[in-house]
């Protein structure tokens, strides 16, 4: 119970923190990979760098899924008891969905044909 109270505020920031992580890690790995030539190492149909980026993206999407389910469960409990925390859980849930949409949106960038062309 206390955890549902104390974590509510944290979860408001969590969804988009995952988004921000996805963003920074993708950006960082992309830069580093280009520098180290990972885009020239083919692995199956795609380059090593592209596989890596897709993997990172997918991992963050999965994390967002988890955040969403956590919020949903906590919302169910707190709303049933009419606790003031229900508001925060509801907002957090909406934020996790929004963050997922934003992650999909920036993920579209991975379809760019040339990863390292300046």
């Amino acid at each position, binding site marked *: 119970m206390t955890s549902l109270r*104390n974590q509510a505020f944290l979860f408001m920031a969590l969804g988009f923190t995952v988004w921000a992580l996805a963003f920074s890690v993708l950006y960082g790995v992309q*830069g*580093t990979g280009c520098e180290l030539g990972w885009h020239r190492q083919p692995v199956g149909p795609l380059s090593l760098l592209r596989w890596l980026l897709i993997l990172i993206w997918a991992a963050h999407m999965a994390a967002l899924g988890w955040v969403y389910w956590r919020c949903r469960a906590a919302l169910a409990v707190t709303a049933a008891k009419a606790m*003031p925390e229900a508001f925060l859980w509801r907002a957090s849930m909406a*934020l996790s969905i929004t963050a997922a949409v934003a992650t999909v*949106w920036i993920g579209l*960038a991975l379809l760019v044909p040339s*990863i390292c*062309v300046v």
Partner: protein
Amino acid sequence: MTDTTATDPIRLHKQLDRIWSTAPGFGRLSAVNHTIVGRRFIVTAFVFFGIGGILAMLIRAQLATPRSAFLGPEIYNQVFTMHGTAMMFLFAIPLFEGLAMYLLPKMLGARDMAFPRLSAYGYWCYVFGGSMLIIGLVLGLAPDGGWFMYTPLSSRTYTPGINADIWLIGITFVEISALSAAIEIIVTIFKLRAPGMSLDKMPLFAWYMLVTAFMMLFGFPPLIVGSVLLEIERAFDLPFFDPARGGDPLLWQHLFWLFGHPEVYIIFLPAAGVMSTVLPVLARREIIGYIWIVVSIVAMAFLSFGLWVHHMFTVGIPHLALAFFSAASTAVAFPTAVQFFAWIGTLASGRPQLKLPMLFLLGFFFVFAMGGLTGVMLAIVPFNWQVHDTHFVVAHLHYVLVGGFIFPMLAAAYYWLPHFSGRSPRHSLGITAFWLIFVGFNLTFLIMHLTGLLGMPRRIYTYDDAAGWEWLNLVSSIGSFVMAIGFALFTVDIVLQVTMGRRAKRNPWGAKTLEWATAMPPPTYNFASLPSVTSRTPLTESGGKSDNLAIDLARGQGYLGFVRDGRLETLGVEITSGRLEQVVRLPNSTFIPLFTAMITGVFFVSVLLKFYLVAAIGFVVTIAMLLMWTRGWGDRADRGLMSVGLGEEAPPHTEVTGAPSNWAMTLGLFANGTAYASLAFGMLFLWVVAPNWPPPVLLDPSVLASALAVVGLAAAAFAAARSVAPAALARAPQRELWLAVAGAGHGAALAGFVVLMTAVPDPTRHAYLAATFVLLAYVALHAALGVVFAAYGIVRSRAGYVSALRSLDLRIGAQWHRYTAAIGLIALLLIHGLPRVMGS
């Protein structure tokens, strides 16, 4: 206990006013009260707006005709740089800080901000830092490299004089006030609310300010780090931005825009908060979509940190990264749109009144929407490449800033002026002022889209007859003078209203938020007793005998409707639920913030003039003075539960875990950690991206010194944790022993770091050496402060301020000790690890 309960409102007022008021005459300089300091921030910000505005007029006068000989290029560069700098740093940010300081406690049902002395200190830092810049301008030494100070233009080679230093040092000085305000706003919103005001019942303005303050907390540190690094490069030749020695000008651009784009939203969100507050009142209905607004401002805050590279689309960044940032830049339009729809929906379904503030709100809609549209255009990379650095960008940024900030703030001025002054207007000059500003603005800036598309670059001091922009520029300049007359009229109107207006009746707009439950102008203590809140519209409810909340509160029928032990008291609540948690004691007026800011000024000015010995002394004295703030502050005996009225009880803040000052340290460390991360990012960035790497020499740091540092840090962290364990807290000798161990641990770590620093060969040779040196200096400074804080804990314990119940001082210290251990270890990891991973 000496409860003096008074139900006679006049007597209660006198009792409260005696302890909350500020002395007249020179005593005014000692003010810490949020109403006074907030007002000062606002007035000072408008003074800087006047200065920035005059500079804007100089710009437009110069550009009105081709080949104008009015300002030469040197002066023109200073003028546009100072215009941008003053508007962004000395006007926009301090203005909303002042508004927040003035309003938040009143809206939340508290008697002051959480740290009144910090507000005053921030204010003086702002005034002194801003004055440095203005003095520079008067002496003709103002910064001239543009408001974003790109290197290498701002490096020593191309700006040999003091101009750039004035910017770097003056702005960093001002940023102290931004960071302190951020911490203070967050803690106030978290903790100092009326009981019952859970987060979902908070006025939207507070949500906006909460998010804004968090953005400031994470946005400003990169700028401060960038400024410090650039100043170090300029003063001591440590190369961070010089590509010949492993630096990279792009590092500056990253650090600057990592701050700079969020900055735009930091300015916009408080203005949007004004929209969401004023608009429903004038539309006579509650705002639509409260939760959606909260969601969208949080989303907006995060997204805005993922956009910074859109200012760098033309510097040569891989397509994929461009696509990321372009995507994020377009995405941020959605949360903006959500708020727009909430506002329009509220207007459409309410019964709007076309009062004066509403006129400015409508002005906002029109102007900001235009700015948003050109913003989306600029987020598209190919278009951006076309108009980069042209007057199209100037037009866009003014539509966003003037539309998204000035118009709402003028609405706020008219809306809350009766509250500030207790007076309402006799004349309607405001309407004329609005139309002059609105028409003048569009005349000035609509045309700049065209001159920009026609290829007129920004920041040029003149142009040729043949360019084909002559009459466009002339019209634009005429427009800007129309707008200037509008602002002058606005100023006159405000002055007239404050001095000669009619006495305003209470709550003239029929608002439902708590700030209108105070008398007008508000008394020093805001509320004679604090309300208990049960809904988002507290003014429509009433807990007392009459049906008027304001009167009930004035009669002392809420919480804390009495004076206890001559102390200034307000209530603290649990963050989320708003349940009553603690009685927070607040300080009254003192000169210490002013003196501390003066000494801080000595530090900054000595750095500017390169008197480094004086600077070092100034720094030490500043720290000493900051510690002195706590002298005589705290409780020497446990007080236990205290009555707060209405039959409820709460402990004093010194005896709870969630005391405001404990939160302040946590938040301060967040900001500090962001600065540290920026530094580490800088080092990695250079290593990966900058030319002329790997460096000529790789360090082989001493294992012995490193081991000493590791052991010291570990000991400090461990001992700090032990010192706040219940067993140690109960026994003075034991907790003091642990504190001594923590101090000694920091001492050992400091020694280790210093040895490592001295082993760095000539840091001016390469960015690798310079970055390593600065990283070590950063953690060494933290260890040194760790020694001081540990010793200070012992002093406090000896003086009787610590007990098993009263552990606040030590817990604050323990946070520092743990944090220092963490960043120290990370530094060692980087210094040992990076050469191994990246070296070959």
